Structures are given as C-alpha cells and as structure tokens.
C-alpha cells in the first residue's frame, strides 16, 4: 500500500474519532470551534452511508458484481434493531398513556388493530438477540439469494437486475400493514436504547463514535482482505471469471462468501443508522436508494479503499444542500454528477490527486519538448 493513503487514514480517523466529538462535547457553544449536536448527528448518518458504500464497492469495484439491492441489507439490519427500539418504548407509548394499550405493544399495532404482539416480535425484547438478528437476517437473505443466483451462473447485468427486483419486492412487502413492520410509516418514535435516552446529546455522540469505530473496523477488514490470496482471486474473478473457474477455483463459493460478507457490513451500518436518524421505513429499501449508493461509489472512486467513503460524504452533503436550495433538481444534479464522474474522473475523488499529477507531468513534458528546438542561444 502507498504511504500517503495510510497517513490520510490515520489523520481522518483521528479527526473523526477524537476531534469532532471533543469539539462537540467541550467546545464553547458560541465559538467557531463548537461542533453542534446537529452536525454530529448528520456526520453519523453520512458515515453509516459510507460503510454501506464500502460494501457496494467491495462487490462492484473489487469483485465485478454490481449489486443494485445493497440497501435491502442495510434496511434489514435497521429493521432488526428498530424492532428492539420499538419494544423498548413500552410505557412511554401514546396509546399506553391514553390507557388503551395494556399489552405495551408498539403504537402502530394498536392503531392497526393487532390483538397481541406477533410471535416473531417477542424475542426482540432482548437487545442481544436483536443485535444477532442485525447480522443473521441480512446474512441469511444474502446467502439464499446469492446461492440461487451464482449457482445458476447469473452474471453481469442480469445479476444487477435481479438484485434490484429483490429489493423492490421486499419494499412492496414491507409497505403492507399486514407484514407487521408498520407499513409505509415503518418504525419510529424511538425513546431509549440500553436504558439511555436517544434524544440525549451525549448518547447521540456515543452513537456517532460507535459509527466511526465500525467504519475503521470495516476499512481495516477490507484492506486486510484485499491483501490476502482471497483478494487476488476476488479481483481475478472481476477481470476474467472464466480463467478463474478453469484455474480450479469454485467461483460460486467465492462470490457467495463476498456477497454475504457485504450484506453483513451493510446490515451493521443500517443498525447504527436507525437510532441516529430515528426512523426506518420501506422507502429506505426502494431501488433508487440502492442506485444512489452506486453513485456514491462511482463519484468517490470505484475500486479504491477510501473512495466510497469520500463519495458517500460528498454526495450526501451535496444532497443536504441541494434538496433545500434546488429541491426539484436533485435527481438531475445526481445524474449529472454520475455522468461527469464516469466521463472525466474514472477513479473518482480518490483518484483525483493522481489524475492531476498525470496531467501536470504531461503538460510539463509537452512544454519542455516545445522549448528544446529553440533552446540554442542566438
């Protein structure tokens, strides 16, 4: 690995992990050094998207599998933790306080006329079980889908379309009230997690720090993975799957492994996203969300270690600004950005320094060669 990248990672990690939270906790409220609670929360959200983008890149950039359904796994992780948070509302729920919810069910269940808490909700009273499900549910869905798809040799654009169909079908299911996950409103109005008030600034800061730690862990994992022989096989599958197959590797197992791993990463990101944003609903798993994640990767730099994180932060910061300044044009801006990145910056933001260097070197050389003939003194 090149040294500047390590340096950037160290500085970035310190900045995100230490400086930002410290300025939030100890910075005098009126000074320019203060980082507001809102900013911390916003960055927590961006970084969750960054982790999601890493999972997209690990599939698309390094294995050649363009998954257009990565938000499904993100949402499934989010729902798994969201269910626990719903049950922890308990006596603070509006219907309970009004006296017509003695079973302490989530409010939407009372509203929709559920007689009792559905059986599959019951174990989510336990935090440990819910965290386990954050990984198990996306993992199992990815395993089943991946096993069927890869075994049938579904590749390229067909794979992309199928992943898109998968997440679309799932969103339709989750939109239904009968599916017991709150229909189009989803899960929201969370109060506490592990006894801590989720609206408390300190708690939000801890959630943010947890997100940074997860990000660092995931970056380290990907970096390690790419250095192993597995990483070499993975990139070889991207470049010439046939050759890998005829070199004696069962490519199906390799693709399945990486697909499940990416679902676990996305699920974990979703689980940290939900308590920080305070809501999870089926619109998070619609196809355009997954497409946006692909744009983050393209803009940030496909097949680069940190590019997806840069892309997720940059595009979402732009979105925060554009959706208030030019709400009608956001999708046009997003599409334009994608086209520009593909045409003029194939390695994205992460590749820009090298690209500028190359241009400068080329420019210098051209200048030097045009000067040479006339270099003799008169």
């Amino acid at each position, binding site marked *: 690995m090149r040294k500047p990248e390590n340096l950037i990672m160290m500085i970035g990690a310190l900045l995100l992990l230490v400086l930002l939270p410290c300025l939030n906790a100890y910075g005098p409220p009126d000074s320019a050094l203060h980082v507001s609670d809102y900013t911390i929360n916003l960055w927590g959200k961006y970084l969750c998207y960054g982790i999601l983008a890493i999972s997209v890149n690990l599939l698309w950039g390094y294995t050649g599998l363009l998954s257009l359904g990565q938000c499904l796994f993100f949402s499934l992780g989010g729902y798994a933790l969201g269910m626990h948070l719903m049950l922890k509302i308990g006596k603070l729920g509006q219907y309970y306080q009004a006296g017509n919810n003695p079973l302490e069910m989530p409010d939407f269940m009372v509203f929709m006329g559920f007689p009792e808490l559905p059986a599959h909700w019951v174990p989510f009273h336990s935090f440990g079980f819910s965290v386990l499900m954050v990984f198990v549910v996306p993992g199992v869905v990815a395993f089943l889908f991946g096993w069927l798809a890869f075994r049938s040799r579904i590749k390229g654009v067909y794979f992309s379309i199928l992943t898109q169909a998968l997440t679309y079908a799932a969103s339709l299911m989750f939109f239904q009230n009968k599916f017991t996950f709150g229909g189009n409103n989803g899960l929201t109005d969370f109060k506490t997690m592990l006894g801590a008030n989720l609206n408390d600034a300190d708690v939000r800061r801890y959630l943010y720090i947890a997100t940074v730690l997860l990000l660092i862990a995931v970056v380290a994992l990907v970096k390690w*993975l790419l250095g*192993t*022989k*597995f990483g*070499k*096989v993975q*990139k*070889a599958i*991207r*470049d*010439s799957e*046939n*050759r*890998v*197959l*005829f*070199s*004696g*590797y*069962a*490519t199906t*197992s*390799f693709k399945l*492994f990486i697909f499940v791993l990416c679902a676990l990463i996305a699920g974990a990101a979703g689980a940290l996203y939900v308590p920080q944003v305070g809501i999870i609903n089926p619109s998070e798993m619609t196809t355009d969300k997954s497409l946006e994640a692909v744009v983050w990767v393209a803009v940030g730099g496909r097949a680069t270690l940190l590019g997806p994180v840069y892309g997720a932060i940059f595009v979402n910061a732009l979105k925060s600004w554009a959706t208030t300044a030019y709400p009608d044009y956001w999708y046009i801006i997003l599409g334009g950005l994608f086209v520009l990145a593909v045409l003029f910056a194939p390695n994205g933001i992460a590749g820009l320094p090298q690209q500028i260097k190359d241009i400068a070197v080329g420019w210098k050389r051209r200048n030097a060669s045009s000067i040479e003939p006339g270099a003799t003194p008169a």
Partner: protein
Amino acid sequence: MSSQVILAAEGVNKAFDGFKAINDLNFYLDEGELRTVIGPNGAGKSTFLDLITGRTRLDSGKITFGTGVGEEITSKKEYEIYRMGIGRKFQTPSVFTEHTVFDNILLGLKGHRGVFHTLFAKLSSEDSDRIEDVLKIVGLFGKRNDQAGSLAHGQKQWLEIGMLLAQDAKLLLVDEPAAGMTDEETHKTGELLLSLAGKHSIIVIEHDMVFVRQIAKKVTVLHQGHVLCEGTVDDVQNDPEVRSVYLGRGKH
C-alpha cells in the same frame, strides 16, 4: 512405444439445437504424447475441449481421464476437472490483466483452492521457487513484476501456459496458441510445447500448418464432429479425403 492411454473419449455425441457438433467421436491420447488436432472451422475442435473441461455437457458417450482404469469426467464440474490435472489454455489469451505476472502464476499454483484457505494462505519459499521456475520455463522471469495487461500478445499466451504448468497439469489443452503471433513467437511457442511433451500430455488445436509441421508427431483431423483420419503430418496431408475437406480449400 506402447505407453498408456491417459484420455479416452468413446462414442461421444453433442448437438446444439439439432446441429451435431460432435458426432460419435472416438479419441485416445497416450501419456506424454503431444497430439495436434486440426480441422476446418466448425469441425468441433473447440467443442471437444469444452466437453473435456466440463464447460459443456455431452449428450451421450463417455470421457475418461487417467492411466489404467480412467476416471469418468463426464459429470464433473469445471473446477473438479481442473483439480484432476486437466488444464486449458483458451483461444484468446485470458490472463488476469490487473495482476502482476507473478500473481498470475501464483493463482494457478497447485494447492488448496477453498475460500477459507485463500483467506489465510501464506506464500511459502517453495511456492516462490516454483513460481520462479515456471516463469523461467515460459521466458517471463524478467517480467515478473509487470502487470499482465502490459504484456505483448505472445507473452500473454506463454503466461497462460505457465499458469497450467504451475498447476502441474497432467494434460494440457492448448487452443490455437499461435493465433495472432509473429513467426518468431510462433516458433518459440512450438519449442516450448515440444519441451513440455513427455512430462505432460498435450493436445494442441491449430490451423497454422507451418506450426503444425514444427510440433506434430501425430495429427488428428476432425471433420463434422468426427475423426476423419489420424497419422503423421505427411500421411494426413496426402490423404485425399482430408485434402478435399480441409487442405484443398486453399488453406495452407
């Protein structure tokens, strides 16, 4: 010279939408033999290799691999067949362009190929030595740290042959190695294949008759998915039937 048969195909048939690509094919290859297979376009040469390597399933007949009582390979998967010791070089060079020449050979290297094994595999010094040996055999040692994508066409072909050697493939299936090569590269490829014969059994599919003359001891002519005749280059070239279907069409 009565060595043992290593590959036997008996009564093999394969049709695509009614078109008989392979038609009652019988083919035997001895251990250590270098066999050249020629035939006009559509004769079923590449399909035959597809059947051996498991890329395509045959309709009827059987293919066995191994000396003595051969093991049936007709229902095995690509990677299983490869692990038995059958390596294939494709017609168009297919190497891992984004990997170094060294890593290309590394990926071909004999050994475990499971997901979890590759996660924790370490490069031993024997592995490095073996990779360097292979690179010397195919003449790419000096290029070991280059990206495979930067190699010349001929060098890519040699690299791909090197990947098969790294696997210690008993049987090498080489599909049109000389296609697109300069005369010098073609000649070098011929010498490489000749030096490998004996240690490996080799089937070469080729169109270029100069190249065939250089390497061939025994030639098999395929026509319409069937063996038309077998013999030395001279035998084959003088066979009136062969001349009419293949050589007589001006291809020399």
